[in-house]
C-alpha cells in the first residue's frame, strides 16, 4: 500500500482553481519534489497534505486512510506528519534543545527517551554543541538544521518541506541540498519537497512532479524528466531546449524533412502521427569543424550566427543551411568556432523528445 495518495485533489477559491485534479502517489521512503513556477499550486498542494488548507475536491490518504476530503479534514496536529517551513519557524523563545524536544514531549514519551533522541538527532545535524543556544544566536544554516532536526526527530509518517532553502545564500543552499538528501538516505522518511529550483529538485529527489497552472504535467525520475520531457512546459521549464516543429509519419520522426531513423522512435508516444513539436537539448548536438568520415548520425550543415563564452561551455546559435531554423547548441570550452564559420551539426536522435 502506498504511503501517501492524492486523488483528484482540487482547491478552488471561488472561481479561481489553484490546484486542479492532482493525482500523486508516494511509496514508503520515497522522496518526491513538487517543482514549478510560483503560483503553480505546489505550496497549496503541500499545505493541503499538511491539513492547513481544506480541499474543495478529491482526497488525501495516508496508509489507506483518508485524512482530507471536502468538508472533512483531520487537523494538522493529528496527522503524525512534520513540516519544514520557508521561514524555518524556529521558535525564538525556546533553545535549540527545547525546539527539537517539542514534538516528542507532545507524544508523551518518557523524559529520558526524549533526551536521548534529541541528543542523537542533534549529533546527526552537527548541532550538539549548540543545544542550549537560542535561535537568535544561530546562523541561517544552523537554524535550518534545527528545523530539520525538529521535523525528523518525531519520525513522521510524511515529511513536508516548503521551499526550505530559498532564504539561504547560494553556497549554503548547495550544501544543504546534499544534507537533506543525506538525511533522507539515513532515515528513509517519505518526503514531499516543494521548490521552484530545478537543481534542488534534481539533487534531492527520487521523482519530480512538475506542476503548472494547478496541474501536474509530468512525474518522472530527474534524468527522464530531462531527456524525455512529455510536455512543452516541462521541456521549457526543466533545463534549456530547442522547440522544433516536426512530423511523425509511419512511426518515424521527420525533422525538417529529414528522417531521424529508428533511434528516435523511443521518444514518440504510441499512436501519435502528423505534426508534432519536439524538444532538442543544446547538449544533444555536437558541432564539427569538418565533415566526419563516417556519417554515423544525422548531419546538418550550419552557419554559426552568434556565440557566447560561459566559462564551462560555449553557447552557440546556429542556422542550419537551407532551412529557416535557429538552434542553440552547447560545446566544450576548447571547441571554439568563429561567427560565420560553416560547420557540421550532429544531432543525437536518442535525445529528441516529442512534447506535443
Amino acid at each position, binding site marked *: 500500500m502506498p504511503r501517501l495518495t492524492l486523488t483528484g485533489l482540487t482547491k478552488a477559491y471561488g472561481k479561481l482553481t489553484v490546484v486542479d485534479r492532482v493525482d500523486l502517489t508516494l511509496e*514508503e521512503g520515497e522522496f518526491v519534489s513538487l517543482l514549478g513556477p510560483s503560483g503553480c499550486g505546489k505550496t497549496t498542494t503541500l499545505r493541503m497534505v*499538511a*491539513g*492547513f488548507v481544506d480541499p474543495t475536491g478529491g482526497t488525501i490518504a495516508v496508509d489507506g*486512510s*483518508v*485524512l482530507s*476530503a471536502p*468538508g*472533512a*479534514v*483531520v*487537523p*494538522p*496536529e*493529528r*496527522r*503524525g*506528519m*512534520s*513540516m519544514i*517551513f*520557508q*521561514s524555518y*519557524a*524556529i*521558535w*525564538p*523563545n525556546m533553545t535549540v534543545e527545547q525546539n527539537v524536544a*517539542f*514534538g516528542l514531549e*507532545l*507524544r*508523551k*514519551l518518557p523524559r529520558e527517551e526524549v533526551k536521548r533522541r534529541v541528543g542523537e538527532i542533534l549529533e546527526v545535524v552537527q548541532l550538539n554543541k549548540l543545544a542550549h543556544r537560542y535561535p537568535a544566536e544561530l546562523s541561517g544554516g544552523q537554524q535550518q538544521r534545527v528545523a530539520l532536526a*525538529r*521535523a525528523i526527530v*518525531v*519520525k*513522521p*509518517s510524511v515529511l*513536508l518541506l516548503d521551499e526550505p532553502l530559498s532564504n539561504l545564500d547560494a553556497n549554503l543552499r548547495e550544501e544543504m541540498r546534499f544534507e537533506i538528501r543525506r538525511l533522507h538516505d539515513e532515515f528513509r*522518511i517519505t518526503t514531499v519537497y516543494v521548490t521552484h529550483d530545478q537543481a534542488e529538485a534534481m539533487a534531492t529527489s527520487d521523482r519530480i512532479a512538475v506542476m503548472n497552472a494547478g496541474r501536474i504535467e509530468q512525474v518522472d525520475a530527474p534524468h527522464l524528466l530531462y531527456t524525455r520531457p512529455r510536455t512543452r512546459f516541462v521541456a521549457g521549464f526543466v533545463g534549456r531546449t530547442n522547440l522544433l516543429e516536426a512530423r511523425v509519419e509511419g512511426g518515424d520522426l521527420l525533422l525538417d524533412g529529414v528522417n531521424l531513423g529508428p533511434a528516435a522512435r523511443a521518444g514518440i508516444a504510441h499512436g501519435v502521427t502528423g505534426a508534432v513539436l519536439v524538444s532538442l537539448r543544446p547538449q544533444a548536438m555536437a558541432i564539427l569543424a569538418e565533415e566526419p568520415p563516417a556519417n554515423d548520425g544525422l548531419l546538418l550543415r550550419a552557419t554559426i550566427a552568434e556565440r557566447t563564452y560561459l566559462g564551462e561551455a560555449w553557447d552557440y546559435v546556429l542556422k542550419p543551411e537551407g532551412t529557416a531554423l535557429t538552434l542553440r547548441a552547447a560545446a566544450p570550452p576548447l571547441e571554439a568556432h568563429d561567427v560565420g564559420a560553416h560547420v557540421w551539426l550532429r544531432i543525437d536522435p536518442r535525445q529528441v523528445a516529442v512534447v506535443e
Partner: protein
Amino acid sequence: MSDAALPAAAVRPARFRLLEPVMLLWVALIAALLVLVAAPLIKMLLISFEMQDTGEFTFENYLTAYGRQRYIDALRNSLLLGALSAAISTVIAVPMAWAVSRTDMPGKGFTWAMVLAAFIMPPYLGAIGWILLAGPNSGWINVTWRALTGATDPLVNVYTFTGMAFVIALHSFPLVFIFVKSALDLISSEMEDAANILGGGTWTTMRRVTLPLVWPSILGGFILIFLETIALFGTPAIIGIPARINVVTTQLWQFFEDPVRVEVAAAYAIPLLLITVAMIGVQKLMLSRKGFVSQTGKGGERRQVKLGPWRWVLFGWCLLVGLLAVIKPLTVLLQASFAKAWGRGFSFDNLTLRNYRFLLFEHDVAPQATWNTVWFSAASATMAIVLALLVAYIVIRKLMRFADVLGFIAMAPFVIPGIVMAIGFYAAYAGPPLSLYGSALLIILAFTARFLPIAYANSQAAIRAVHPEMEEAARILGSGRLHAIRRITAPLLKTSLLGGWLVVFIVASRELSAAIFLVGPRTRTMSVLLYDLSEQGNFEVVSAFGGILLFITMVIVGIGMKLVGRDFMLRRE
C-alpha cells in the same frame, strides 16, 4: 516506522465544524463590539430625534441646538481653535522632528525627553500650569514683567483665544513630531544627495525635497490635532469658561447641567462626529496617492546633515519648546503643590506638605478618586487588550469569513470623539432598563470602547510580527490550536501586549472628556476631581493632586520603559 502515539485520525463531519470554538468566540466578540461601539452611537442618533419625555419623533432638538447665535458661535470657535492649535503645533514640531531625525543638532536626548514629557502630561494640568504662569494679574510671567519694567499691563494673558490655542498646542505637538520624525527616518540620504549633486544646498534640499516627501505625515499630524482639539474638554473648560470663550465641548457640558437635556446634546454633538469622519476620510484619500510613497526604507544609509552654527539655533528652539511645554508649567505646579500660598514664591517658610496630606488623608473624595482612576484604568486596559487581541487574531489569521467586519468595528471609535462617545454611553446605558449611571461598570465600558483602537492597532502589529508558520510548526508536530497559542504565540506576544496595556492605562488614567459625563458621586476619577478642584480655584491643592496623578503616570511609564523599551509610548501606530 512512525510513532503511533498521536491519537488515531478521526474525520470530523462538516456539520460539527459550525460549532467550533472559534465560531462561538466570533459571536461573542460581535456581541461585545455591538454593546461597546454600535449601540451607544445608534442610541445617540435615535435620541436626537426624540422628545424628552414621550419619545415621539421630532426635529425639536435640532432646532434648539442650532437655534441660538451662542450655540452657532461655539461651533465656529471650535473649528477656529482646532485650526489654530494644529497650525501652532506644526510650526513647533516640524523643525524639531527634522533636527532630531536628520541633523547633527546637540541635545537630542533632551529633546526626546521633552517631547515624551509633553505627551505624557495631561493637557488640563498644562492648562493649570499656564494659568499660574500667565494669569493676567498674578501669573509668574506677568508679575516678573511688571517688577522688571514697572509696566501696569500684563505681558501675556492665558485667558484669550490665542492663549488657549497656544496651551493646547504645547501638549499636542508631540503627535506631529512623532508622525514627521518616523517618516523622515525612512528617507534615505541618497534622496538628499541627489539634490545636492544637482546643486541644491542644505536649505534648498530640505525645502524642496525632504519636507515635500513627508508632507503627508505633516498633514496627518495636523488633521489629528485639529480633531483632538475640537473634541477636547479640559483646557477649554479650565481656560475658556472663565474667559467667556464658548466651544462645542463646553456647550455640550452645559446641556448636561440641570435639567439634563441629553436629546439636545445628542443633536448638538452630531456635527463633531461628521467632521471627524469626513476629515479622516479626506486624510485617507490624500495619503492613498502614490506620489509620496518613496519611504520604502530601502536605499541604504541615512547620514546626518551638518548644520554648523545653525545647530545651536535649532537646539535653542527645542530648548524653548521644552521650557514652555514642560519645564516651566511643571516647576510652577510643583512649587504650588508644596506651597502654603503659591503667589509667595520659593522660600522655606512657604514650604509645606499640607496639600498632599490633606488630599491623601483628609479629603473626602480624593483617596477614592485616586483608587478609582487606578482600577478603572487597569480594568479597561485589560478588557480593551483582551478584546483587541482576540479580534486581531481572528482578522489577521483569517479564521472566519467576514472577520474584517470585526476589525472595522474595533477601529471605529477612532473616528468618534471621546465626548460624543460619552454622550452615546449616557444615552444608551445611563437610564432604564440598565440604569448604569454612576456605576463603575459604565465608566470602564466607555473607556474600553474609547481606547479599543489603540489596543487594536497594538495587537495587530504584535500578531503581524509573529509569522503564522510559527504556529503551524507547532500544529504539524501535534499541538492543537489552543495549545499552540498558549505555548508559542502567547510567549512571543507578551512584551508588545504589555506595552499596549500600559499605553491604554496611561491614556485612560488621564481621560477627562468621556469621564465627566459619566461619573457619579462614588465613581469620580482623578481627572474629574482635578477639574472640580480647579473650578474652586484652590491652586495649591489642585497642583498637589496633579502631582499625585503625574507620579502614578511616571511609575507606569517607568515600568514600561524598563520592560518594553524606551520608545514604547512614542511609536507611531
